[in-house]
């Protein structure tokens, strides 16, 4: 009996390691949710069609060598609804989102391009407010918005406005960070409270009749990233910002990239009680909820203590915590040690609990 169970489990593991194939007849909201369906679409369609070395990393930012310089390039589209929410707005997200993708590649963000798709009839004051928010966020993150594009589409076509930003940064570090470099024994760090952004958006939509004092955590991550690079150097394996799909999705991606087990201590991950409560009521695990100003880092064990202190010394990193460890097993998966003294596997997000959060 037990042998048969093992056999079935082994078969599933093999299945999970196969390159995902994109076979769906139509695009559903799940393809945009950052979980398994998104992964299948990106790896099964885009990566196949555009095949090249820089893309193969499937990181949020790619590193391109130009004239001997390592240039990090990243782009991100923002379709959040509502446009404004407690703690931020689409303009602020559009700047911080791309800045953070560059930062996670270890590159100091330098310049952004911004493309606006604006809906006919949008109140100019709304647009002005978002442009102002972008200007402030750019200043805060130390980047310039140097070029852009404007399109207007018919009424009802764009929920007010969509913004796409593309950014470049200089890969200043001598070190290369990649998910594949993660190895057993490494420590997993989290820069602060998780789940705030996604929960704030959910509540701001007003569809749930829930009220709580939860604000988005949108913030530029370069100060935290550079502190980590400085303190851990080549002992820093990789950094990721857990946006759509949350902490669970990032850890699953890293587990798959390095073929290691990521072991997460459930009660070590900082979650605000209000977020925990809202998620409990909605039946959502905060580990799957989006963040817009947090990072996860994997560091070699010897550097973990210094890296944690470095994070905590930077504004926005005060609540950083050691949340887990990399193990050999279960390879390619995330194992959660529950606060209750049990364990479970934390899979990639399936389906779409929270549409349009960034």
């Amino acid at each position: 009996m037990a042998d048969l169970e093992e056999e079935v489990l082994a078969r599933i593991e093999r299945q999970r390691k196969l390159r995902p194939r994109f076979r769906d007849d139509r695009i559903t909201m799940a393809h945009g949710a950052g979980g398994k369906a998104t992964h299948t679409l990106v790896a099964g369609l885009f990566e196949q069609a555009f095949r090249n070395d820089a893309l193969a990393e499937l990181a949020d930012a790619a590193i391109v060598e130009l004239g001997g310089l390592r240039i990090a390039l990243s782009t991100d589209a923002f379709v959040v609804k509502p446009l404004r929410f407690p703690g931020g707005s689409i303009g602020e997200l559009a700047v911080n989102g791309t800045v953070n993708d560059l930062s996670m590649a270890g590159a100091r963000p330098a310049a952004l391009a911004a493309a606006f798709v604006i809906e006919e009839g949008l109140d100019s004051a709304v647009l002005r407010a978002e442009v102002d928010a972008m200007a402030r966020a750019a200043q805060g993150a130390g980047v310039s918005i140097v070029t852009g594009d404007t399109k207007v589409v018919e009424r009802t076509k764009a929920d007010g406005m969509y913004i796409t930003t593309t950014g470049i940064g200089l890969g200043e570090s001598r070190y290369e960070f990649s998910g594949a470099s993660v190895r057993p024994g490494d420590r997993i760090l989290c820069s602060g409270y998780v789940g705030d952004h996604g929960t704030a958006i959910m509540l701001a939509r007003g569809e749930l009749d829930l009220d709580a004092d939860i604000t988005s955590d949108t913030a530029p991550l370069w100060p935290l990233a550079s502190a980590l690079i400085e303190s851990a150097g080549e002992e820093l394996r990789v950094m990721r910002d857990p946006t759509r799909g949350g902490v669970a999705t990032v850890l699953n991606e890293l587990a798959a990239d390095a073929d290691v087990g990521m072991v997460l201590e459930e009660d070590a991950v900082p979650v605000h009680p209000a977020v925990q409560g809202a998620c409990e009521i909605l039946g959502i695990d905060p580990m799957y909820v989006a963040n817009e100003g947090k990072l996860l880092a994997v560091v070699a064990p010897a550097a973990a203590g210094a890296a944690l202190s470095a994070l905590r010394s930077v504004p926005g990193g005060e609540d950083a915590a050691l949340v887990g460890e990399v193990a050999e097993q279960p390879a390619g998966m995330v194992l959660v040690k529950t606060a209750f003294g049990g364990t479970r596997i934390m899979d990639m997000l399936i389906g779409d609990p929270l549409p349009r959060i960034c």
Partner: protein
Amino acid sequence: MKFVDEYRDADLARTLGTQIASLADAQRHYKIMEVCGGHTHTIYKHGIEAHLPDNVELVHGPGCPVCVIPMGRVDDGIAIAKRPGVIFTCFGDMMRVPGGDGSLLDAKAEGADVRFVYSPLDALKIARENPDREVVFYAIGFETTAPSTALTLMRAKAEDIRNFSVMCNHVTIVPPLKALLESPDLRLDAFIGPGHVSTVVGCRPYEFIPADYGQPVVVAGFEPLDLLQSIYMIMRQLDEGRSEVENQYGRVVFYDGNTRALEILSEVFTLRPHFEWRGLGFISQSALGLSDDFAEWDAELRYDVPGVRVADPKACQCGEVLKGVIKPWECKVFGTACTPETPIGTCMVSSEGACAAYYNFGRFAKSTARAGA
């Protein structure tokens, strides 16, 4: 989190685990069925089996309301959802359940206006706000969710909201339990009774289980310590040779249930003569339809639906999983053709389904927990 953490204390769990182990006869193998999908979810999410001895096995029963909806009823829902002018509302889990040809989520991608709601009252609100559209609520669930559907219908009637209707798929808890107990291939020692359903129906309806089948029933809450305590209470009954209905969830469940809710149910619903359960087949008097007083709000009367019965896929063994005859991993298609992304059987669709819960949370749970202990 206040009032939740108290029920998730690992030290207390270890103590209860030791007490359960001391009551378990080493020569015996215990099979305890948790009827309710919510319990299954808690068991995997918190890793409860790590605290149980090897010879105490939990069997996951048929109590996931999404999992028991047959494919033909999903197709009927999709047919309504695809009608022009209809806003089709349902609980989130329901959207991914495959019918004979795709799910409500697929219908949404094809242009149907399908929205998920957290309460039928939200669906009624959508109807109020969209007087030029027809709003349909696809009602599912046991006696747990039926009162909220009933209240919504009463409100719709009181406010005379005519662009709202309900496609009723509510089911009742006792008939499937009877059907289970009658199946010859079932081998169980006791039941963990469904907590949420019991807040409405109380504990009395389960008295036939100890009386006629000699098996203990303990109605349990949904926090991990609730479950461990109810397993302890069951083991004590078995150890002392007792079999009776006990209530572990006394902070919420009254022995006689919620009489006001039961009154409302009998006012709004009537018992259907029979209803098809996915995997279990037709069970007589096991589901609720709208009573004549609410016929005007009955989506099945308002719209033409195909009403075609779709046989369960041959390879799928949901029925045996639901009956606890086989474990999820023993199903021929588990984890290969049938996964949470591409579910064949409904046990894989809802996160409360026995297969999805095992797929997401259960793998490695036992072995790694032991290795770590």
